[in-house]
């Protein structure tokens, strides 16, 4: 077929729009999204096709042999301008037509954090707005139609995201992603004609109607109508890092948005094996977790009953000195299933060097599921490679019980453990301040999975890399590095770099059989089956209940009951 005089080839089943896009020809559109079935709602991709009457939309017209398509001429440009101006007659457009636009954008580079958006300068979506892009492409700087503000109330009654339907252009992307990709159908077009709105059945809240708050609708919205309440006001990002989520063992691909050295948002990674979809935790909770004031800031050592912030050298010195006072049989190590392969490997190396045989995995679970820990398969695989059968591994509860009976005196744990107060010498290497800190002899602050490089082995047996995205919180260090320094003090093998540790850990993992993920991997076109549902099981990260950290998550969980 021919597009704009250019001979192009196409595959059976492609639309005119897809063929043009593949050939590098831009046709503006607002309702098309690559993950979604085509819909033909916005009427922007209208083209001329020889032998066809009127202006067929490129997105819903199948390509045929010998078609001759014109994508751009004065007439089409005028139609498109009209379409966009009609959209702008209901979508706040003052910033687009303002005479002071240039100066204003120079002085007010960051959006204004408004509750109700009445211009681009107040809009969190400004930097990524599809509508603005089309406006700029068409060079629109005035709107001939009179503007009519819908003046509907901004919906802020639900956790996690705000909905300002004054900005909605009714492209239907949110409706389609919810129904066709996530299989939920929480929202739909309601009413007709001029009154058409996106809404839930009977106008109930999303919480009442059973929305899972995965945020897929927020991610596809071409305007600022849907926005993540906690993570929208950063403006232009400094960097975006492709990494994986560490909150469950599916390890979905996420893009970490970084600004001011801090994690300001997490969005789904479309290039990852999870096809650009996330659950509520990955989409809305990670930034708040990583920046949370409950993070441990400094290494601390107990002196005269008080935990005193000290430097790393002193803290690690106290840990080594303390551990050396005990017999190996009086010691237990608790390895969190949320730590990386490198961290777990180093813990096991240290255990072997010191002679500790009591190893517990946390959280404990006989029946292993993908959700148990951010790296459940990696950590348990490494334990297996180190010679521990599942029966030999203890649970944190066993350790607490034995500590209560005086059988275990020293505990080195990488997460919060309940009722561990009876241990004489407790070393906590953790991310958050928890109740166990009350009885800790030494506290070692660790970087979260957003701050340090590491690898995890997902439920399908594939090892995936976590990247360094945001700057480390206060004085925290990576897990593997802390344990490496302790191991060094015990005159164990010295690992110079993360690469050395990773190579050794990978070699260990290669010894064990890959997890049997046949049943699950075969369904890997899998949405929404394997994106976990909240509350199944409790959402925790290294023993810390995430509903304590993220208030909206508590609201969601309580609303679910």
């Amino acid at each position, binding site marked *: 077929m021919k597009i704009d005089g250019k001979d192009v080839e196409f595959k059976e089943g492609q639309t005119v729009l897809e063929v043009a896009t593949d050939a590098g020809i831009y046709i503006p559109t607002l309702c098309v999204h690559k993950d979604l079935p085509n819909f033909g709602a916005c009427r922007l991709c209208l083209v001329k096709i020889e032998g066809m009457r009127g202006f067929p939309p490129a997105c819903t017209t199948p390509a045929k042999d010998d078609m001759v398509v014109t994508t751009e001429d004065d007439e089409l440009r005028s139609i498109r301008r009209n379409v966009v101006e009609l959209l702008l007659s209901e979508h*706040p*457009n*003052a*910033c687009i*037509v*303002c*005479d*002071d636009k240039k*100066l*204003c954008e120079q*002085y*007010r580079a*960051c959006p*204004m*954090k*408004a*509750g*109700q*958006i*009445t*211009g681009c300068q*107040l809009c969190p979506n400004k930097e990524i707005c599809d509508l603005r892009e089309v406006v700029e492409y068409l060079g629109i700087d005035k*709107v001939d139609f*009179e*503007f009519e*503000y819908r*003046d509907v109330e901004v919906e*802020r009654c639900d956790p996690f995201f705000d909905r300002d339907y*004054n900005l909605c252009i009714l492209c239907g992307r949110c409706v389609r992603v919810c129904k066709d990709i996530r299989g939920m159908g929480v929202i739909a077009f309601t009413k007709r004609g001029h009154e058409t709105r996106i809404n839930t059945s009977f106008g109930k809240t999303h919480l009442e109607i059973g929305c899972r708050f995965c945020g897929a609708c927020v991610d596809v919205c071409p305007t600022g109508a849907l926005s993540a*309440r*906690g*993570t*929208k*006001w*950063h*403006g232009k990002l400094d960097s975006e890092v492709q990494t994986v989520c560490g909150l469950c063992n599916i390890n979905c691909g996420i893009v970490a948005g970084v*600004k*001011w050295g*801090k994690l*300001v948002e997490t969005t789904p990674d479309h290039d990852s094996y999870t096809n650009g979809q996330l659950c509520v935790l990955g989409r809305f909770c990670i*930034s*708040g977790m990583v*920046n*949370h*004031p*409950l993070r*441990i*800031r*400094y290494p*601390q050592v107990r002196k005269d009953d008080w*935990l005193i*912030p000290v430097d790393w050298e002193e803290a690690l010195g106290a840990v080594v000195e303390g551990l050396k006072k005990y017999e190996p049989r009086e010691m237990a190590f608790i390895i969190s299933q949320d730590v990386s392969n490198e961290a777990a490997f180093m813990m096991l190396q240290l255990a072997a060097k010191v002679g500790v045989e009591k190893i517990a995995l946390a959280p404990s679970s006989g029946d292993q599921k993908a959700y148990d820990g951010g790296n459940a398969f990696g950590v348990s695989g490494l334990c297996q490679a180190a010679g521990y059968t599942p029966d030999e591994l203890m649970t944190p509860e066993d350790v607490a019980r034995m500590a209560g009976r005086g059988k275990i005196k020293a505990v080195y744990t990488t997460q919060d453990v309940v009722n561990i107060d009876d241990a004489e010498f407790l070393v906590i290497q953790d991310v958050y*301040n928890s109740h166990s800190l009350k009885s800790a002899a030494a506290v070692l602050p660790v970087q979260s999975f957003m701050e340090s490089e590491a690898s995890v082995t997902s439920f399908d047996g594939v090892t995936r890399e976590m990247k360094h995205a945001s700057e480390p919180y206060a004085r925290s260090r990576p897990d593997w590095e802390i344990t490496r320094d302790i191991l060094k003090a015990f005159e164990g093998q010295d690992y110079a770099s993360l690469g050395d540790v990773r190579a050794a850990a990978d070699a260990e993992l290669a010894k064990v059989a890959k997890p049997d993920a046949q049943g699950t991997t075969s369904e890997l076109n899998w949405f929404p089956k394997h994106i976990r549902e909240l509350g199944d099981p409790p959402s925790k990260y290294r023993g810390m209940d995430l509903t*304590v*950290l*993220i*208030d*909206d998550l*508590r*609201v969601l969980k309580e609303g679910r009951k």
Partner: protein
Amino acid sequence: MTDEPVCQDTSQAFRIVKMKAAAPNIYEMVIEAPIIARKVEPGQFVILIPDETGERVPFTISDWDTDNGTITIFFQETGVSTMKMACMKEGDVLVSVVGPLGKPAEIEKYGTVFLGGGCYGIGGIFPIARALKEAGNKVIISIEARSKYLLYNLENLGSVADELIMSTSDGSTEHKGKIHNIIQMLLDRGEKIDRAHFMGCNFMLMISSEATRPQKIPTRVALNALMVDGTGMCGCCRCTVEGKTKYACVDGPEFDGHQVDWDELFARGAHYLGDESIAYQFYGQRSCKMDMDD
């Protein structure tokens, strides 16, 4: 000023008696604060704390009622604190309201006075306009917004203005443009302006002040500086006017618009953008009562 010290009203709760959306994103809040209502003069402000985990935020007093012991503020939602305030309802109580703070506006008979208001300033400029009118001036008020539906407080302003001119970026009112375009229009028609007052965002103050500079019209602007205590102690609201360091809270908020170091003001205002943005991640986490280690 009387001898009575400026004090925090501790005699009763700062109850919200009226809460209303004046325009999209702009709210009118009437607060019970009898002592402040008795003492306030045009151009002064209060610092209030919305809730027990809230921060101190300054707001221009936009009207008051001595008989009922109330003050009115208009505020724009533009951060976590104002988001909390926007969610409050009539009958709710603010944790604290301190004021009146700052120097009152200079009110004399000047002749023709031009007042320009944008965003919260459309509400905040009213007491100054009223006092200037009462002092015998010809008062021309111009207000600006992106579009017609964002203008408010028209009745109040109309009652004290000899002329009220509405300008909008999108041309949905008679005049397309901003306040600086209106000043030019007035000058073009031969109006002699003896003094100008501006209240609104810093960007609007800067652009408007530039418009009165060529004619050397004495120009007063109510600066928006980040502020903590409001009594000259913390130095957070530092700004440079006529090459000298000033505190917007005790030396202002009004300054000579032609002498302000705008670049510094914008730079200082942007200093906490990161923290302001990240604060949204923790909004509503008031249930989080665990001890923190610092």
